[in-house]
């Protein structure tokens, strides 16, 4: 290892992806025990109960919306898109880190991804589930919206308009949700077999057995399995890039100043990864602490994630710079006005808070001692999540609220039901994560075995 020359054994310790003292058996036992132990820890019940209560807000918000109508939310002319789209883009963006970790880092042979890919993928699925609420419910009456969202032969003889980016979005997001779920499930199959073989109670043996589908770890199985996994990663890579690109098209193809910019696709994709890694950190830090997984999710993992956040944060900052530059260099009155209004208009606080969260804060990660401080990383992950929410708020609200004619200007605030729906999806997200860590292995056992053997070979 190259580290020998710089810091000797101390450096080598810091580079480890699995703490010393483990073997194939202990890795299997340590991770499967979290799921298979009979007694659910008290802390789990407390956390789950809180999340479950918060989730009820979603039920109330959506129930009231369906009962009364879309008017219970804030959006109105000129701001026709509000919290619904802000939250949709925010959640979808968060999902991207999961696919990046599981697919792109796999193709790039970044072995440190192994202990975080499973729950990052779960996070993707749950984030997409949360995101899906908004576009479906912002139609007001989802049961009649289906015919202009999905192409199916209906009695009215209507078909969706495939020239619209909103339809592209439907295709991109549903494909993304499906492929992410498949990728996650394929990764789970060998671990479900491990749980089936190690479960002591009959009902759990049967349940895990059904989902393991008879997996027996045969060389022939692994051979096809590895090919499938690699191909899925290769398919998920262009997919994940396309999803946020298409989401950005929802804006970029419109002629609204502040939306109509060619920088949008790359800047949205980078922002998605940036927000997603922040969420992975938000989840990984308590997970490794409460389940004592520091042996598998080491400081090196956290530092690497911080580095990805720093890099993507800088790309996002470049995006903000480009927006300002385009507005000035184009010389178009509307564009210039838009950026001035964004910085100094009634929503100035949102813009500058966004700059603070997404441009200033990530630069602290240049410092190694901050990058390796767990409490600091936990704190900054919340700052980044807030910043990315504000980014969508700024893009959507400040671009729309000053229409081309001053007579159609307006202001936008989220109503109590906007907030209830948003906080409710946070509850849904956390509830699903609690169920996930209770019933499925949060770290891929089979891949950790491979990593263990590889690390042993590298050391030898």
């Amino acid at each position, binding site marked *: 290892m190259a580290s020998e020359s710089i810091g000797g054994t101390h450096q080598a310790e810091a580079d480890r992806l699995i703490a010393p003292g483990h*073997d*194939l*058996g202990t890795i*299997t*036992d340590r991770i499967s025990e979290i799921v298979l132990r009979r007694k659910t820890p008290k802390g789990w019940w407390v956390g789950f109960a809180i999340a479950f209560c918060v989730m009820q807000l979603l039920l109330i918000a959506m129930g009231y919306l369906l009962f009364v109508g879309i008017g219970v939310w804030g959006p109105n002319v000129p701001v026709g898109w509000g919290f619904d789209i802000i939250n949709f883009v925010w959640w979808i963006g968060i999902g991207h880190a999961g696919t990046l970790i599981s697919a792109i880092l796999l193709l790039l042979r970044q072995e440190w991804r192994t202990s975080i890919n499973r729950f990052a993928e779960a996070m993707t699925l749950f984030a997409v589930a949360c995101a899906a609420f908004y576009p479906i419910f912002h139609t007001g009456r989802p049961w009649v919206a289906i015919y202009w969202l999905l*192409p199916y032969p209906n009695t009215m*003889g*209507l*078909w*969706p*308009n*495939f*020239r619209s*980016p909103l*339809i*592209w979005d439907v*295709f*991109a997001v549903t*494909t993304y949700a*499906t*492929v992410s779920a*498949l*990728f996650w*499930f*394929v990764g789970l199959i*060998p671990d479900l*077999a*491990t749980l*089936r*073989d*190690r479960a002591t109670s009959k009902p759990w043996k049967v349940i895990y057995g059904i989902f393991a*589908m*008879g997996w*027996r*770890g*045969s*060389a*022939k*199985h*692994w*051979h*096809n*399995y*590895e*090919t*499938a996994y690699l*191909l*899925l990663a290769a*398919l*998920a890579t*262009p*997919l994940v890039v*396309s999803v946020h690109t*298409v989401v950005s*098209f929802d804006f970029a193809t419109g002629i609204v100043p502040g939306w109509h910019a060619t920088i949008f696709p790359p800047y949205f994709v980078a922002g998605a990864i940036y927000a997603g890694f922040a969420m992975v950190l938000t989840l990984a830090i308590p997970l490794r602490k409460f389940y004592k997984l520091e042996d598998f999710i080491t400081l090196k993992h956290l530092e690497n994630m911080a580095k990805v956040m720093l890099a993507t944060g800088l790309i996002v900052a470049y995006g903000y710079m480009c927006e300002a530059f385009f507005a000035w260099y184009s010389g178009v009155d509307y564009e210039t006005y838009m950026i001035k209004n964004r910085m100094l208009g009634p929503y100035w606080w949102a813009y500058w808070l966004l700059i603070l969260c997404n441009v200033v804060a990530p630069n602290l990660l240049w410092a190694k001692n901050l990058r390796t401080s767990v409490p600091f990383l936990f704190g900054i992950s919340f700052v980044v999540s807030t910043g990315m929410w504000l980014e969508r708020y700024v893009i959507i609200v400040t671009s729309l609220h000053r229409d081309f004619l001053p007579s159609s200007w307006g202001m936008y605030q989220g109503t109590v039901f906007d907030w209830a729906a948003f906080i409710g999806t946070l509850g849904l997200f956390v509830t699903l994560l609690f169920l996930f860590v209770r019933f499925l292995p949060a770290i891929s056992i*089979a*891949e950790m*075995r*491979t990593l263990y*053997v590889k690390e042993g070979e590298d050391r030898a």
Partner: protein
Amino acid sequence: MKDHGPLHGIMAEFHSPDEVVEAAQRVHAAGYTKVDAYSPYPIEALTEALDLHKSHLPKIVLAGGIFGFLAGWGLEYWAAVIEYPMNIGGRPHFSWPAFIVPAYETTILFAAFGAVFGMLALNGLPQPYHPVFNVPGFALASRDRFFICIESRDPKFDPEGAKQFFASIGARAVSEVEH
């Protein structure tokens, strides 16, 4: 189906990846052809030792991708040009640049279906019952043990001979796999 007698095969247990790979090489060299190995994680050397043919999965994925592209593009063409032509902003009915995005997504979707369902089909999964699970201790194949099974459909198969052969190459335990 041909009756292979009461046995599925003879199974040998090994304790390390190096042991099992070496044993697999010996089994292959001894001329056994219907052999399978079981391990808790994928071992490339084991696949090579058993001389498994190349996976057909990439072809299935390619077929899935091509089907997905044609299906997506065809759906768009049929809906926008034939079944429900609409003048939207004066654009041609066949506005192909706009059709790229949904077709791109369906290509990926069906290729992924090909990868997942193709893998399951090639592996014969789901399979509710398999005789290897009758072997005592086989549950450890998903923890830290390695197994090789010479199956009874092998032309060279002879239960006693296979047992002795496994003993001679250092198996930790040898057992009969009953149907």
